[in-house]
């Protein structure tokens, strides 16, 4: 079998640290029997507390896992252990024909991939009816959003009249109730931005400029929405996305979105919780195209993310980009692991070029939240005041927002020599997500901002 992940990469998939630890403990040959593999999959049986052993199988091209154990965690400890065992000693896995319980699963996975979109199964009449209903729903929503934005506009004007100096004393509910009204008006994107205002005030001592920037973004989106009909289709899509309109994944995959095939490196990944929803941000970088793509994953509780991507690995596949003037968010149309390729992609070689690129992105989408920066030949350093910077060959620096531990890790990894660094730039600071050097990839812990 050609695909082999490192133990570290497999443990990245663990839903929590205890699952990872349990997986490691189970990854010994004595706990497994009937281990086997084909070019596509690996499998084995692990004796648990039940009478029958658990049947565990993995399609490492995904990777994807399935286990007969009752665990709600995904991947479960048995799945992790199976992959870890394969990573440590492939010789334990006998190359043979897959048993029925593996073959059936692989077939059902293949069938799911081939399944046609449901829209295509509808008759022309049903399709027309469905389109009309959809259009009506959209118009209704636009009206509600319009009303919500007008109300928000009044709120912002009041805020300017009273001064933002007064909001420091306001309770969290001051912003939360405003955000709730926007949720009612079906503008969740704006609601999120309003909620973030409360977080800015709560966490920072120098919050005024940050709050003004956030209010400016909200104002800009509101103003753009009120002139929606005058905007280009791309900008219109941007505004609607910023407000919280979802683009139909089905439509995008069936041809509405721009499609790009490449070898994609998972160059950065982190997750956070937002309103009890776990969000995973995966940044991909095209080896040939130099295009970046953001794949978002969502999950509730301990449920797995719908897409499993391992940082530092290449995937060969097709991505479909969401519509907008600056294509960034994308969907995976097809993917296959390419772990043999060393993690290297080319990026920007100077801080000036990066800032200039950001300025031109901002010109296209002025409410842009963050942009990905892949900086090459840069050196991390720490000032005597304890601030972290990324400095290029011309001695120009970008400020890093990083935990001290991560900063030292990055500095030590560089050894004072140039490396490549990937991160998210928000207009004032760069949040590093990964560093690359000599064909090696280092994932960095992110700081919650």
């Amino acid at each position, binding site marked *: 079998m050609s695909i082999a992940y490192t133990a570290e990469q497999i443990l990245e998939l663990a839903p929590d640290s205890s699952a990872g*630890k349990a997986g490691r403990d189970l990854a010994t040959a004595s706990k497994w029997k009937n281990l086997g593999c084909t070019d596509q999959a690996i499998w084995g049986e692990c004796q648990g507390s039940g009478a029958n052993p658990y049947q565990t199988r993995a399609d490492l091209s995904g990777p994807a896992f399935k286990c007969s154990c009752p665990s709600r965690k995904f991947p479960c400890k048995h799945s992790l252990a199976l992959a870890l065992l394969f990573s440590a000693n492939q010789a334990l896995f006998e190359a043979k024909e897959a048993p029925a319980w593996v073959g059936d699963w692989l077939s059902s996975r293949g069938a799911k991939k081939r399944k046609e979109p449901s829209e295509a199964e509808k008759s022309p009449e049903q399709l027309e009816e469905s389109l009309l209903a959809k259009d009506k729903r959209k118009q209704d929503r636009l009206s509600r959003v319009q009303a919500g934005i007008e109300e928000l506009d009044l709120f912002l004007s009041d805020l300017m009249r009273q*001064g933002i*100096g007064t909001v420091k004393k306001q309770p969290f509910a001051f912003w939360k109730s405003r955000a709730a009204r926007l949720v009612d008006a079906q503008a969740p994107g704006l609601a999120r931005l309003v909620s973030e205002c409360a977080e800015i005030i709560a966490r920072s001592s120098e919050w*005024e400029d940050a709050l*003004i920037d956030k209010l*400016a973004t909200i104002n800009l989106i509101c103003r753009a929405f009120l002139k929606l009909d005058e905007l280009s289709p791309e900008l219109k899509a941007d505004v609607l996305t910023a407000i919280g309109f979802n683009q139909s994944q089905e439509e995008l995959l069936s041809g509405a979105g721009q499609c790009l095939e490449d070898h994609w490196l998972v160059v950065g990944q982190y997750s956070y919780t937002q309103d009890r929803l776990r969000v995973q941000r995966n940044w991909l970088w095209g080896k040939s195209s130099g295009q970046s793509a953001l794949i978002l994953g969502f999950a509730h509780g301990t449920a797995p993310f719908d897409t499993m991507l391992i940082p530092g690995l290449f995937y060969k596949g097709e991505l479909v980009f969401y519509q907008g003037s600056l294509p960034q968010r994308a969907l995976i149309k097809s993917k296959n692991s390419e772990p043999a390729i060393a993690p290297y992609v080319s990026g920007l070689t100077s801080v*000036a070029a990066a800032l200039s690129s950001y*300025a031109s992105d901002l010109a296209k989408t002025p409410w842009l939240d963050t942009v990905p920066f892949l900086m090459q030949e840069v050196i991390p350093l720490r000032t005597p005041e304890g601030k972290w910077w990324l400095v290029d060959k011309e001695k120009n620096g970008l400020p890093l927002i990083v935990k001290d531990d991560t900063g030292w890790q990055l500095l030590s990894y560089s050894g004072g020599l140039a490396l490549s660094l990937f991160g998210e730039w928000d*207009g*004032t600071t760069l949040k590093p997500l990964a560093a690359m050097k000599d064909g090696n990839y280092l994932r960095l812990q992110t700081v919650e901002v």
Partner: protein
Amino acid sequence: MATQVKKSPFYELTETAILGTDRKPLNRIIASGDLGQTIADLSLKEGLEQSQSPERVLLDQLTTLSIARKAGSHAHIFENTIAVCPDEKKQKVSERSLALLVQILALETRGSELRPSKMIADWLIFCAEANQRVPDEFVPRLLGLGKNLGDLHLLIEQCCGEHFAWLIALNQEWNTAYKKSTQEQSAEADRRQALVNIFETALQKERYSALCQLRAIAPQEALAALSSAFEKESFDSKILFLKALNSALSLSDEPFLEEVALTDRRKEVRTQAAALLCLITESRFQQRMIARAEQYLSYNSNNKQFVVSLPDKIDDSMSRDGIIENLSLDSRLGQKATWLCQILSLVPTSHWQKRFKLSAVEILKTATSSSEWSLALTLALINSAAKFGEVEIQKAILECSEIHLTDSQSGLLLLKALPHTLLENLILQKLPSWSQKSEQAPRLDLWYYLEQVDFNWSENFTREIMKFIIKECREKVPVFGHTFYSNASIFALRMHISAGELIEQIAINSEMTDVYRRNALERMSETVKLRYEIFQSFKSSNETSTISKGNKQ
């Protein structure tokens, strides 16, 4: 007249936003450049439409300013960069070894158990022995981890390669923490001075450690450092620092101990000084103590009994020499027996051998049969054997079936003082007696013996103990008792790891209903397996590198 600082028009905008248009009306902005022009144009819109209130104009101006600020970010220019780390010469540890280190670092600490720190030390020792280093990105984690663990500094330095010196030069906190170990490697004189400095300025624990180190390399300088500071020390510091003089004791220590420490107003300090003085051969104190002991103890060769005659009360000279009138030494001893025990404990047994012309075995036998004084005499001999390290009496005590060392504090002290080989032999000798015929445990004594001694067991000894445990587990239903959990955990940490392969033979099955035993065995098994895996990971990576070197040649 005070000069007014002219504010930037953009600053004024922010100020208006903070104060509000009610308190600071929006002024027309006059500023140069494209940004200034755009903002000025927005001002002109005020009042043109119903929606163009001053607040709305302010919002639009702030929005323009915000975008301009983001788009116009300039890079910060750095004049200096950092030095480059020298090339690494050592090979990186294998992925497996590193994964094991990560696993150890993630171990949960239960109570005050030693497991994580001992395992980390183990890992570092194997890594240093294999002449390998952690990956570059892992060095800060190791430095952070070990900054307060002075014992690990040297190992950490070895395991971090060139990155160690490079990084600690960049981090003040690490630099301070690791400076000591760097100093230790500097010239001898510098090192001695550094230790004196630490003793003079640091906290009690570090001072004690520095004094011990100084005593080991320069006994007289250690004595001088302690003498100069002694009077100003607190009583607990005095006791602690006196213990540091225990090594390399000589007659040159006598004046300080006799004239300063032994005249201290606290009896605890005097007792500690007495414990040291009695170890100095031909010291005035030893001679006084022998003369005193001879006065109170004699031997009747006719009935082969010791004869004890003690005074009614202790005099000033006894009190000055650290004999405590009301000492609670052992609940079975009366007041006078305690005096006797204290005095005789400070006299080497070899003195009595010469004086009474008896062997160590005969002295012990006589002591145990000396009716009412037998316990005091026996405990005194045990104390003396621990203090003076005389092998003949130590062996005699170990061979005496009437003495259970784990029954008294003195016995436990002797266990700790025994040479390792002697103790290992003692335990191996006793093993069969701990294996009982009934369905019971190897007696708790085994674990007491193992627990009392803090050193790493030899390979042969570990194998024998492991085989014993395996056999006991297979053949019986041992009741190890509630302390077995900690006993087994400690054993797992101290045992010689090359015997780790035997752990698989310990039968732990899911039917075990005795939770204490099962948990303890599982814990022990987990610890030994992890230690053994670390050992194997370095062994195999070393073999791989040797093979690859061989192939190259």
